[in-house]
């Protein structure tokens, strides 16, 4: 199944709801043809608002423009935008069979019955729903429903696929396996897609690029790996994974170092004058006490299967969490050595409110509005 | 001291004044009650085992039916001998207190310039289309009285309702309103311009409510009907009930009826000034009486036939 691939441009689009809530601050965004972009952020940050604006389910405040393939669609209602949508609750038509759900858009378009059957059959195969054609949504498992919703959305050969937390309703185990499946399917369809989620692993697994949102704006946009490793804001760092906050005394700041369990770590130039830095649990190396390493005591050890989580107490720092390999022999009460590669330290600074989103791949910005 | 009277509505026959007079003269409180005759009868039958009411006021045919059902009891009130025979049950199971004459109650304004109809035949004229009302003959006593009146006037008898049936069928072309209960107010408001109704309602509208209302006794004739009262069998307050019955037939009670334009059963009780407000006696000569017992018997068959044929 080959679908059209177009770029999507959102230009200075903002949304103020009828009750005065600013659902989205003026936002500019470029999605490459065939790219999968994830909108990631905590609840209420405006992900759904942005997605619905792109879909045409909400109309933007005056001045905002939305282009599909360079063509303005701002005034077009959802029926005429040629988008496919997958909703969090899947929104499958409960009275229709799997087949009828998937073929719905085609029937609306007056596609002949035989042709509809053919195309639906193809999608059923693609989404591995064979044998379930005659079932109704209520008889399907969560994962099967999700696939029907996806098949229904792509059946009409949309130019843009929009997904609003398509995995949120599933339980953890199923989520993980469907995540990989969805990633694969999107890659196979090779369609321009925008995928909303608040689960960072899901975003990283599925999307080519991530746009991290907070309080109605995009705070950083880029590849998952870049964002995870070099977040430009503590918010992004915290949102993409667990972090430990490392405090620096005024003296340490003056010396350009960081004290931890008696050891002294050089601070990267960029964060020299910050009074706190961040480090991820898996970036704290834990070994037997040794020279040059900091000293710490294991307060708690939690076996989590693929890894062991240690809660450490090191002098001069709040409790730290370190993730170590699952064969780590350290137990609660042990004294251990810890070490942090300076390159792994991250900024704990909050950028000033209203700052322009930092973009790794600069979007083409014909007329970016003042934020 | 209370007596319950079924079918004594304040707004009908000026029961309101009568009830106040009863209270003043006998000390007995009689709460007003808005049933019609049929409703009162049904209630009496339903409550036969343990009556609520002490006395009841009924259209004569309903009283005859009540007698058959055994829900009333013989009582001869003080003025018994003044009531003409034929207007009372010989045993005293019911007796007339006053009577009315059926005719046309006409709201002249609502006719909007059309002439006041003078005869049953006039009502069939197309010019009265939409202006006529009569109470449902199958449902209200007044309605049945109207049917008997037109039947007699057009040559029928209590054994032959053919003329009435023909008449009502013809009348349907004029799209009459057929309410189930007294529609005095609707005539006053002009909703109904011509209503088959009693003289006393028309006079009340004309003299008390100062409406431009005329009463017409149709030229082909009509009937007069007695309204009667009875003591309810096993009445819970029989003593008070009897006092009430005595009062409504007393000089004072009868005068009150007359002032409400109901012809009192004791002819001598009619004050001259009130008499003057009635149509002249010559007109009333066209109002007949009928055998009310047979009128009661014929009611069921007539209603069934009316319901089947007049649609």
């Amino acid at each position: 199944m080959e679908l059209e691939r177009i770029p999507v441009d959102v230009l200075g689009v903002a949304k103020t709801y009828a009750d005065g809530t600013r659902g989205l601050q003026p936002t500019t965004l470029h999605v490459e043809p065939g790219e999968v972009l994830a909108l990631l952020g905590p609840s209420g940050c405006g992900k759904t608002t942005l997605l619905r604006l792109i879909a045409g389910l909400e109309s933007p405040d005056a001045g905002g423009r939305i282009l599909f393939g360079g063509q303005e669609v701002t005034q077009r209602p959802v029926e005429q935008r040629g988008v496919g949508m997958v909703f969090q609750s899947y929104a499958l038509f409960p009275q229709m069979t799997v087949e009828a759900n998937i073929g719905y858009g085609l029937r609306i378009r007056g596609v002949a019955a035989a042709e509809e059957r053919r195309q639906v059959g193809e999608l059923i195969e693609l989404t591995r729903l064979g044998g379930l054609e005659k079932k109704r949504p209520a008889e399907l498992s969560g994962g099967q429903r999700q696939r029907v919703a996806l098949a229904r959305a792509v059946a009409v050969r949309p130019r843009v696929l929009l997904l609003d937390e398509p995995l949120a309703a599933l339980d953890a185990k199923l989520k993980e396996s469907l995540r990989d499946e969805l990633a694969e399917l999107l890659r196979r369809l090779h369609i321009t897609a925008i995928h909303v989620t608040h689960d960072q692993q899901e975003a990283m697994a599925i999307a080519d690029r991530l746009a991290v949102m907070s309080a109605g704006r995009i705070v950083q946009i880029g590849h998952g790996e870049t964002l995870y490793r070099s977040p430009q804001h503590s918010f992004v760092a915290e949102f993409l994974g667990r972090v430990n906050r490392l405090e620096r005394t005024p003296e340490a700041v003056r010396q350009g170092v960081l004290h931890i369990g008696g050891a002294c770590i050089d601070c990267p130039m960029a964060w020299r004058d910050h009074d706190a830095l961040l480090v991820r649990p898996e970036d704290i190396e834990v070994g037997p006490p040794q020279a040059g390493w900091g000293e710490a005591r294991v307060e708690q050890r939690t076996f989590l299967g693929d890894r062991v989580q240690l809660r450490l107490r090191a002098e001069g720092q709040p409790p730290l969490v370190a993730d170590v390999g699952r064969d780590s022999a350290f137990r609660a009460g042990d004294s251990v050595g810890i070490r942090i590669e300076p390159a792994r330290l991250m900024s704990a600074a909050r950028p000033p409110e209203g700052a322009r989103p930092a973009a790794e791949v600069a979007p083409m910005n014909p007329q970016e509005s003042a934020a | 001291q209370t007596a319950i009277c079924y079918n004594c509505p304040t707004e009908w026959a000026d029961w309101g004044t009568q009830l106040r007079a009863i209270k003043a003269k006998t000390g007995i409180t009689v709460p007003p009650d808005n049933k019609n005759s049929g409703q009162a009868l049904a209630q009496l039958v339903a409550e036969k085992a343990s009556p609520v009411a002490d006395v009841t006021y009924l259209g004569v045919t309903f009283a005859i039916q009540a007698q058959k059902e055994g829900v009333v009891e013989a009582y001869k009130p003080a003025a018994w001998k003044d009531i003409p025979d034929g207007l009372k049950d010989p045993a005293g199971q019911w007796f007339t207190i006053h009577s009315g004459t059926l005719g046309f109650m006409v709201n002249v304004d609502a006719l909007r310039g059309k002439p006041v109809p003078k005869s049953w035949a006039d009502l069939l004229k197309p010019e009265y289309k939409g202006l006529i009302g009569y109470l449902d003959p199958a449902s209200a006593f007044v309605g049945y009285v109207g049917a008997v009146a037109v039947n007699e006037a057009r040559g029928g008898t209590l054994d032959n309702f053919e003329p009435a049936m023909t008449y009502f069928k013809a009348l349907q072309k004029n799209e009459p309103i057929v309410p189930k209960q007294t529609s005095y107010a609707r005539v006053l408001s002009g909703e109904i311009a011509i209503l088959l109704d009693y003289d006393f309602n028309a006079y009340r509208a004309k003299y008390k409510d100062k409406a431009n209302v005329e009463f017409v006794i149709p030229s082909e004739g009509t009937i007069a009907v007695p309204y009667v009262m009875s003591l309810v069998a096993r009445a819970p307050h029989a003593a008070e009930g009897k006092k009430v019955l005595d009062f409504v037939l007393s000089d004072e009670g009868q005068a009150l009826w007359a002032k409400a334009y109901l012809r009192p059963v004791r002819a001598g009780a009619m004050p001259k000034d009130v008499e003057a407000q009635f149509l002249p006696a010559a007109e009333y000569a066209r109002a007949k009486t009928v055998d009310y017992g047979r009128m009661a018997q014929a009611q069921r068959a007539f209603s069934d036939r009316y319901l089947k044929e007049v649609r």
Partner: protein
Amino acid sequence: MKAAATTHPRWLLPACLAPAAVFFLAFWLLPVLRLVALPAAQGWQTYLAVLTDSRYLASMLDTLALSLAVTVATLVLGAAVGIYLARHAFPGKRLLLSLLTLPLSFPGVIIGFFVILLGGRQGLVADLGAAFGLERITFAYGLLGLFLSYLYFSLPRAIATYAAAAEAMNLQLEEAARSLGASRLRVMRDVWVPELAPTTLACGAILFATSMGAFGTAFTLASKFEVIPITIYNEFTNYANFALAASLSIALGLVTWAVLFMARHFGADPTR
């Protein structure tokens, strides 16, 4: 999770049920059973009066037809208004909704009178007609008047029910249909109708039941169209014929109860 049979003492539930059961038994079931036995005294065929007497049969069929028509019309209009009110915010909406549902508490008599105020000879429509030089249009005493008055007391229930149901409707289903290109009409057919089906069934059943039993309205309007409650009333008051009135009541009760039962059987509870 399936209903868990939490361990209660055996007597507990019967004890909770007892007051209502005793009351119901004493003040409804036993008296009504006695009433049901009444027609037997006049011969068992009295029970079949509604079938054997063409007048009663006609009255029953007329009532059924009227109730059905009113139910359908009310459902359509009530759904439209309910959905609109649930969807759109405007000042005074709560007031309007409560005014629209107020007639739930009106006795039928008032409603009959309202229709006379609207469509009687002195009614609003006639006055308006006259003002525009037309003839005085009256419809209060005809079938239309009866229909409108039934509509009047049915609409509040439908509006309230549909407004609540529409409030709970899954907006995403509609958006999904639209994103697939569905027109408004298609959305109505494919999303609204199925989604509101249980509400429609439940509400329809209670509307139908109320219409079948409506007395005061028909009584006030007294159109020539005789509905079965009026027939029962006539038997009752004109001839004190309790047996026949009981027989007709049983027939009416059976029809109405059957409709309520069916609605519940198909998973919609009208009295809820």
